[in-house]
């Protein structure tokens, strides 16, 4: 079989940012009808490479070749005109506008004198939405959609033009399983139409399910490409991080302590209702459910960010009233929030200051912040979590998504909490670091911490938790003890099929 001509080739792409060589001579080709995985650790340069492809960044050196013709793209529209569509890692939507306007953002259909052709716009959009099997229509405002549905709006953009290449940068980070299935259908449709798909994800099972070829970047350098069927998780991991990864979970052999946190019949408005559970010190409790199940709201209530409407919270057997995050912090509760950019980080602030923010009142020398102590904290967690940054002075906004997430985790670990709540802790984190974080969570538990892990990834909750609380629509449907959980009964519990517990 002779290889078809690539729809797209990248040759020796170099891209530098002040202080960072993000891409260092990367070459890559995408064939028509293939799903090409791009993998690499956080900060390896995947998003940057794709932004070069999407016309958002211009390369310092090297060439982009489309259909064997070198091209220069000075903007996203030029890339789109060449048939390159880019679905961003971070949501890139105008929330106040309708779904249709977002799907066709930048190229609304017109009918003379710059007037928008609403009829055509809604018709075309609804046709695309129908393909995606989503439960909303073209006129819905994006701000009224859940995060997952917003992601689907992004994905809908891939279908607006006759694309030659579609790039998905971590599209599944906030999708539920049902939506993932739709996405994969879309991808195989594209494939059937000879479109080349570049697919970035840190989730191995997806990579092996849908991709044909895998290319790997490490520190901005191209490590090579392999056919997916010729390799396995271990092989890819080795290419990515240069060593093997031990993915087995060591059985916890530590004793569980007393009940550290107990929640009785807790409710808050419409977000969740009559929720009860316990977490012992030394235990990791996973919360699993669909987006909108109310898990985040429980965490926020425990952390003093929401008022409860009824029920009580007990810490070490005592009823407590958490009025504010300050309160929660003083009582030894930490929360790694779900939205790192919105809730976790001050993007314009440097890494060190972000990391020590919650304890800035406590690390002082006289009336002043003790900068030395801060740097020590930063160094410690940079090393233990392997955070890639040129130094503590770097603005967090310039770090790659995964490294930003690590800063948030470090920020809350350094608080030395008794109860640690992590909400989607590994969203957008590479396999290596992910397993590091899982190990870390286990280790923290073994030291006596009570840990709550909220996650929408089934493998993650199953891997890391001692017990799993399943939620559906603001209620706890079932609590699984260690050993009794299977994929099947978990799916049942979170989809409202099984009876309420």
């Amino acid at each position, binding site marked *: 079989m002779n290889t078809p001509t690539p729809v797209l080739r990248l040759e020796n792409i170099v891209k530098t940012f002040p202080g960072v060589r993000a891409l260092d001579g990367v070459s890559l080709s995408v064939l028509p009808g293939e799903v090409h995985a791009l993998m690499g650790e956080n900060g390896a340069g995947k998003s940057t490479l794709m932004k070069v492809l999407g016309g958002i960044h211009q390369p310092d050196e090297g060439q982009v070749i489309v259909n064997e013709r070198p091209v220069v793209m000075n903007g996203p529209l030029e890339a789109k005109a060449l048939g390159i569509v880019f679905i961003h890692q971070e949501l890139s*939507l105008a929330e106040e506008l309708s779904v249709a306007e977002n799907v066709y953002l930048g190229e609304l259909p017109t009918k003379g004198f710059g007037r928008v052709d609403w009829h055509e716009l809604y018709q075309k959009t609804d046709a695309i939405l129908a393909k995606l099997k989503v439960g909303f229509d073209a006129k819905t405002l994006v701000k009224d959609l859940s995060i997952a549905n917003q992601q689907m709006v992004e994905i809908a953009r891939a279908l607006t033009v006759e694309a030659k290449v579609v790039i998905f940068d971590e599209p599944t980070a906030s999708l539920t399983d049902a939506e993932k299935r739709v996405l994969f259908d879309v991808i195989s449709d594209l494939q059937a139409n000879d479109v080349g798909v570049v697919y970035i994800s840190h989730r191995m099972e997806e990579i092996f399910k849908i991709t044909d070829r895998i290319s790997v970047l490490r520190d901005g350098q191209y490590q090579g490409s392999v056919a997916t069927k010729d390799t396995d998780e271990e092989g890819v991991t080795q290419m990515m991080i240069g060593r093997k990864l031990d993915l087995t979970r060591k059985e916890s052999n530590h004793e569980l302590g007393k009940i550290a946190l107990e929640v009785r019949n807790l409710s808050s408005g419409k977000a969740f209702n009559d929720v009860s559970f316990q977490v012992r010190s030394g235990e990791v409790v996973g919360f699993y459910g669909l987006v909108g199940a109310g898990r985040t709201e429980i965490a926020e209530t425990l952390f003093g960010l929401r008022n409860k409407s009824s029920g009580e919270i007990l810490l070490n057997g005592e009823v407590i009233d958490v009025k504010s995050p300050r309160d929660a912090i003083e009582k030894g509760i930490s929360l790694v929030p779900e939205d790192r950019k919105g809730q976790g980080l001050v993007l314009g602030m440097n890494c060190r200051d972000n990391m020590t923010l919650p304890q800035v009142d406590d690390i002082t020398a006289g009336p002043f912040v003790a900068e030395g102590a801060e740097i020590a904290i930063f160094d410690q967690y940079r090393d233990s979590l392997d955070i890639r940054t040129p130094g503590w002075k770097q603005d967090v906004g310039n770090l790659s998504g995964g490294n930003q997430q690590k800063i948030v985790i470090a920020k809350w670990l350094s608080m030395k909490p008794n109860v640690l709540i992590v909400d989607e802790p590994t969203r957008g984190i590479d396999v290596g670091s992910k397993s590091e974080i899982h190990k870390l969570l286990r280790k923290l538990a073994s030291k006596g911490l009570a840990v709550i892990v909220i996650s929408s990834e089934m493998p993650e909750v199953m891997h890391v938790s001692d017990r799993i609380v399943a939620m559906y629509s603001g209620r706890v449907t079932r609590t699984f003890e260690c050993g009794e959980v299977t994929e099947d009964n978990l799916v049942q519990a979170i989809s409202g099929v099984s009876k309420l517990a």
Partner: protein
Amino acid sequence: MKSINVKVLLKASPIWIFILFELVFFSVAGSYLSLSDKAFMDVDNMLLLLKQSAPIGIIAMGMAIIMINGNIDLSVGATFAIAAIVLLETMSSPMFEGLGDWVIPIAWGAALLVGTLLGAINGLIAWKTGVDAFIVTLGSMLGFRGLVFMFNGENPTSHLNWTLVDFAEAQFLGLHTATWFLLVVTAAIWYLMNRTVHGRNAYAIGNNREAAVNAGIRVGPHMMINFMLIGFLAALSAVVFYSESGSVNPNDGQLYELWIITAVVLGGTKLTGGSGSILSTLGGVIAIQLLRKGLGHIGADTSTVNLVIGSILILVLFLDRQINIKGREELKV
């Protein structure tokens, strides 16, 4: 149940409810305090209200676009004054002496052109240098005012043309000329913002500039067009107003920017951009004008007027927030 309905109503159109409240209040208070026999809600008085809202209102439409687009323009007051000077200077220029009243369209054209040009300067600087529009226009607020003084020394520029005054004072279907301009501008801007690609893109840019850039929307030219539009509208406002009054002081239009921004924000436009309604902006303008008129009607003195206007602004903002609170279980951020 009933209280919910009230809330829904309030949410849908808070500014119009506020206007209604003002009308009722001043009518009632006026019947005790006013020296006039005429009712506050007299038809003629309401027609005057619309007319008097025009100078600020026309510019406010431009400000609404600018703010929806995510920018702000502090230089409109100075642009207003420059356009007025151009208008009046052109009319008194010996160059056009032979033309009789045909000088009027020329003067109007010249004033509108200059306004648009000044807007273009702001837009171009903001676009090409990347300096924030707040700073660019804070600077040009000063700079344009300097140009005003350069133009006419420190004296008023005057030219009374009675044909023009009669035109400006005319009433058609009961509405004054200025009111017609205000209504037409409102309609046009409403159409622009809700029906055209430029308008929708302006919303998108204000809402999420990065997303707009990523989607290939050319942010710069849109911004530039919007600044030209507000420049044009500031000049149009000057043209409408000074056609009637015929003389401009170099300090005219000072502080207009603040009142205009206030009106736009009262109308519910977010200062951060991306959302806002043209019709509510008209509401904001009318609400402020009504407040001034009403306070005059009931005989409030200067210090009271200042106190009340300031407090009302804050109160409206407070009520608006109370209405939009979802419940005590809301996320506390």
